[in-house]
């Protein structure tokens, strides 16, 4: 009899041990609080910097270059002597002619050398004023509705470290049928900024600037043709998952604009450690103000990593 009692007791005990479920480990999530931010479309074009003043000096007559008084890179003032050319035609009695700088600037190209025989109308020199530049872009016909006079863009190039603000000065009303583009000219807003003529860079314009919500694509959850995001709701000190239907806007740089369905302050789940069924309790891995702590942990881990490796 005793044995029977012991047996039944042990069976009961083992049954109770089985029925006690292990506490299930919560899935962890990273959330981002919904907050409106500036959203815009951007248009980018390759842009060439050109000098506003860029004069080419031509030979006025046929002759031989006698001397070049302003070599390449020489800063000249308007009317300053540049080159002396001696007539080869006896009619002019081999009289030397001096070519003068039409504008102030720097000699940017010299096409001839002393002793060269030049003909009338031949390119001799180029004088450029580097302090006054403009930027030229080619705008596709489709984009012409956005690129208007006065639109502000930012210019970047390898030659410049900083971003330079530009303003559209004018757009050609003519679309070149071969390229399908119209040329547009831009000027520097900050006249002190330095751009080197001839450099190729990129101009980016913002358009359609407005406020809105954006989230990473991971946050979007598709059911058929409907789209949802998951948010966490605090109930009885527990974070529960709730699906919210949303309408998606455009995708820009890996982020999706959410047009409707969201309210400011909602905690939207961006990443999760596993699939999240509706109503599941989750642990939030990135509750605010824990960022620094995480960084520290990571540092420690790296240190440990190197230590452990040293052990091996």
């Amino acid at each position, binding site marked *: 009899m005793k044995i029977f009692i012991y047996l039944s007791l042990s069976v009961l005990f083992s049954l109770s041990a089985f029925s006690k479920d292990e506490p299930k*480990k919560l*899935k*962890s*999530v*990273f959330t981002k609080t919904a907050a409106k931010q500036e959203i815009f479309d*951007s*248009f*980018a*074009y*390759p*842009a*060439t910097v050109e000098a506003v003043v860029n004069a080419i000096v031509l030979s006025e007559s046929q002759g031989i270059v006698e001397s070049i008084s302003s070599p390449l890179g020489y800063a000249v003032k308007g009317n300053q002597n540049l080159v002396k050319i001696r007539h080869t035609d006896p009619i002019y009695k081999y009289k030397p002619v001096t070519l003068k700088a039409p504008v102030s600037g720097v000699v940017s190209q010299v096409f001839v050398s002393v002793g060269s025989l030049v003909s009338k109308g031949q390119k001799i020199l180029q004088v450029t004023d580097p302090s006054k530049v403009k930027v030229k872009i*080619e705008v*596709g016909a489709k*984009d012409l509705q956005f690129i208007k006079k006065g639109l502000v863009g930012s210019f970047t*190039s*390898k030659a410049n470290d900083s971003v330079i603000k530009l303003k559209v000065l004018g757009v050609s009303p003519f679309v070149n*049928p*071969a*390229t*399908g*583009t119209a*040329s547009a000219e831009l000027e520097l807003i900050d006249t002190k900024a330095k751009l080197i003529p001839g*450099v*190729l*860079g*990129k101009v*980016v314009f913002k358009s359609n600037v407005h406020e809105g919500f954006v989230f990473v694509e*991971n946050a979007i959850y*598709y*059911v*058929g*043709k*409907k789209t949802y995001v998951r948010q966490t709701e605090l109930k009885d000190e527990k974070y529960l998952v709730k699906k919210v239907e949303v309408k998606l806007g455009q*995708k820009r*740089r890996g982020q999706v604009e959410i047009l409707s369905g969201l309210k400011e302050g909602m905690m939207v789940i*961006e*990443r*999760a*450690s*596993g*699939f999240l*069924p*509706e109503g599941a309790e989750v642990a939030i*891995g990135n509750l605010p103000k824990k960022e620094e702590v995480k960084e520290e942990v*990571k540092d420690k*881990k*790296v240190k*440990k*990593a*190197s*230590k*452990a*490796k040293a*052990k*091996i």
Partner: protein
Amino acid sequence: MKGLYSSPFRVYLCLFALAIAGIWAGTELPISLYPNSSKPTIYANVSYGSSSSEEFLQNYGARIESTLEAISTGSLEVEELVAKYGTSSVGYNIEFEWGADPKEALREVQGLLNGLSGTWPKEVRDSLGVNFWSKSSGFIAISFFSQERSLDELYDILEPLLVPKLAKVSDAEGASLWNPNRKEVRIELDIEAMAQLGLFPRNIDEALKSAQSSYFGGSVLVGTTKLSIQMPRDLNNLSDLENLLIPTPKGNLVHLSDIAHIDQGPSSGHNRIFKTNGAESLILFANPRTGGNVKRMAEEILQIVEEVKPQLPSDVEFRNLVDPSEFIRESVKNVIHEVFLAAGLAVIVLFIFLGSFKNTITAAIEIPLSMVLAFLMMKLTGMNLNLISLGGLALSAGMNVDASVVVMENIFRHFEKVTGPLNYSQRMQIVVRAVKEVMGPVVASTIASLVVFLPLAFTSDLTNAILGDLAKAVVFSHGFSAFVALILVPTIRLHLMKGEKGVEPPKSPINGSLVKLENGYANLLRKFITSKIVKWLTVLSVMGAFAVLLITVLPKLKKEIIGTPDTDWMILAVNTSGNTNIRQMETTSSIEEARLLEKFGTDINYTFVQIQGANRSTIMARLKKKEDMSRVWKAMETEFQNSPTTYFWVGPWNPAELPLPDPPHMKAIVRGGSDEDRKLLAKGAINLLQEKEIFSRQWTESGVDRVENIQVLAKRELWPLLYKEGVRFSPYDLSDLARVASEGRNLGDVSIDQKTYPIRLSFPEGTMSSMEDLKALPIGVGDKILPLSALGDVSLVQSKPVIYRVNGRDQIILMAKEKKGEESKKEESFKAAKLAIAEFEKNAAEELGLTTKPQIYFEDAESELNGALKQLGMAIGMSILLIFLTLLLQFGSFAHTLIVLLAVPLGIMGVLGSLFAFSSTLSLNSALGIILLNGIAVANSILLVDFIKKLVSEGMVPLEAAILAGQKRLRPILITSLTTILGMLPIALGSGEGGKILQPLGIAVSGGLWLSTFLTLFLVPMFEVLYLDWKRKKDFKLPRPNQNVDETKDPLIPATEDVMIEGQL
């Protein structure tokens, strides 16, 4: 026969020659880890070139599919054709029926596709690749590393030493030393300069190609010698590359260095890192060619590495990550060990019962000889030496002495009757008579114990593929044992007798105890049969125990296809999301590796890490002891939990595991409807399964996630005018430019300072990080610089889903699986999933906004496995039926036959009990054990029943007849049972490499036989007495004494016992 035995040296010579041939055959047998346990599958891959997946499918794909599907030659038959049309290429998996020769299949597919490729564009034709890779053949992997040297230095040291030698390993296919960090020549283009000059990547490619060739300028006859005129190639070193002249559209020539930065460095496109103990490593990898000897290959490669070792600097280390020869060597050693152990145990049993050392040796010689002869047959039938067939040889070792014992015993018995000296011809006559007498029974009993394997030949190909080799090995070696017993044993006996005078039958050293045992057993049996209570209580309890075993134990037994050997590799797979650079993954991976080492460092011998990409890495840890595996596995699973950014997978990895089909537990097919709707429905169903958490894992074949691509549509209408303006680039150049700007492009190899490097053309990193960057790519047209968007419309589009076709039909397959260790839940989960999906499908069209009607069909995912198991069950039934028919022929009575067959359920009881007691599994091998056991177990009861019947027919009372029969037959029953049980013991213990595979078989046979023997000794005589008494009462007369007992004897009575009893009478 006389002639045979009279010339012993001729017999020895013949057998010696056969044995030599057998040994030769043994060394010539192809060696692989396992028999081929998967259907031969050929993989073919084709790139679309410039067409899209749909265009390709329409123009060429459908034709390819129908051609491949129709392959049907005499021995080749396509079972399933899966075609997967991705974004840029299509893969075909052509699965052939079982038994197809992979080499032939490969040739056939290659031939067909080459024939079809005649009409394909050249680009597509060149991309065609067809290959076969068998998982069961094994591979070798060795990592080389140094804590002090860079990978390139290491490669430069190892490459000249290893690579030429590796090329000579004839069994290997593509043995190579792989440097994941291989240097390349990088040409980083200046995007602005390119645009301003109006250049495209193509211009550089063309200039490079022409500079790399050397030109032949004919030849001149100078005097009598002919001198050829040559213009050597321009490109020999990096500065030549810098000075390479590129023609511009404006008619100038510029140096490459003016428009690009050129240097040599680690491959920027490299997407893999290997690390051994934290040091970046090179990998030597080789797999055997089809039909090659993987053991010889691995040994040759290891030998090369050992030869090279003294020439390596001391800091260069290597680790054999996977060495198949080690597994094979170990298991061969193990099998030999087991064979010796089994033979040794059998010999001890023989010696204890027979008493003579010489005779014991004569019987034992059969074990190695029949094995060597089996090699000959294996060679003739084209078998492999592998873990399974070697196991079969070990298995039969214990059974193989039986025939010799019988023959020898009968010879003794015949000499026992004669007294006085005999001359040679008299002795010869006696031996011939003795052998002739047992020849029938020996052959018959051997056939009887082999006939049980017959139904196996008709089982499904999966069972046959796995067990066929084992069954064949047993059949061959056991079959030869009868042959050897009839030829060699009498010859040796006769030969030995030359020196012996009289023939004293040898006495067992434990004869006294045996006699006591026999008497004790007789007394016990008498009490058992006469006491009604004990008798019926025993019967009832045996029946009860059988029922309990069937109801409670059978379902509890773990089921598996085949046992898996232990492994010392644990895998921790790390997946992240959002990394863009492989170096980021390297950091994550080393953090996790450190965590692993911190927690489990004491269990781990070394680690090997593969970083496969920016978001994937695999940390492999080699444990110090295999026994620690399950403990470490569990602990690792709790330690590494998923986080929102990092996902882990923990599991063991066994390079020596038999590759078996690994079907999902649920398989449903989405068919019909439009591509888009099919995808939506599949996605919905998968989401549902995930949400309900029915299975632990679910996935789809051919993805259902949304895929977006950037599309560039060239504005072709601009080109006529552009051409007029002198523009010479084509719309194709736009995509080429985008490709170089985004991911770079390889321009083939270049020889720099007599070494070959790949050339990579790219733009500086970060040139393209968004779609806006792509739109703004500058292109020089005349004097203008245009954005790419001016020449082509750039937009984000939903890309076409991957087209997944099975046997020519579009479909998406939903699959789900339970976690390892929770497989028992699968049936319940399957039902739940089926219900949930049916419910979901009702409203799916509305909820998901479907316009067409795709449907979900469930399929039996495990049909092949279930079929195999079912057929195996039928094979067991068939083998019992075969035994039944044999017995019916022998006894001519249903009652006796059924009583003899009592041994079968008793044996099965023993099998279930011992499988449960030793926590072994119900597997193909334990089923085979049951088949084998049936053949052996009935032999004991045949002995008893046959003898009782004979005694009763001679006029004895059934009770006395049963007791006498039991007493007299105890000894032979014990000999055969003990030799078999002890012979299987080493296998049942399952020690050593690969031992786990056959363990259930050993446990089944030895456990089952043990119980069956013990119970047979009591229950069979009891039922015989009951039946004979009942029959006597019914007939009211004694059975008519049968004068001609010998004539009624059926040749199928197992001979051992028969002869021995006669001797003892």
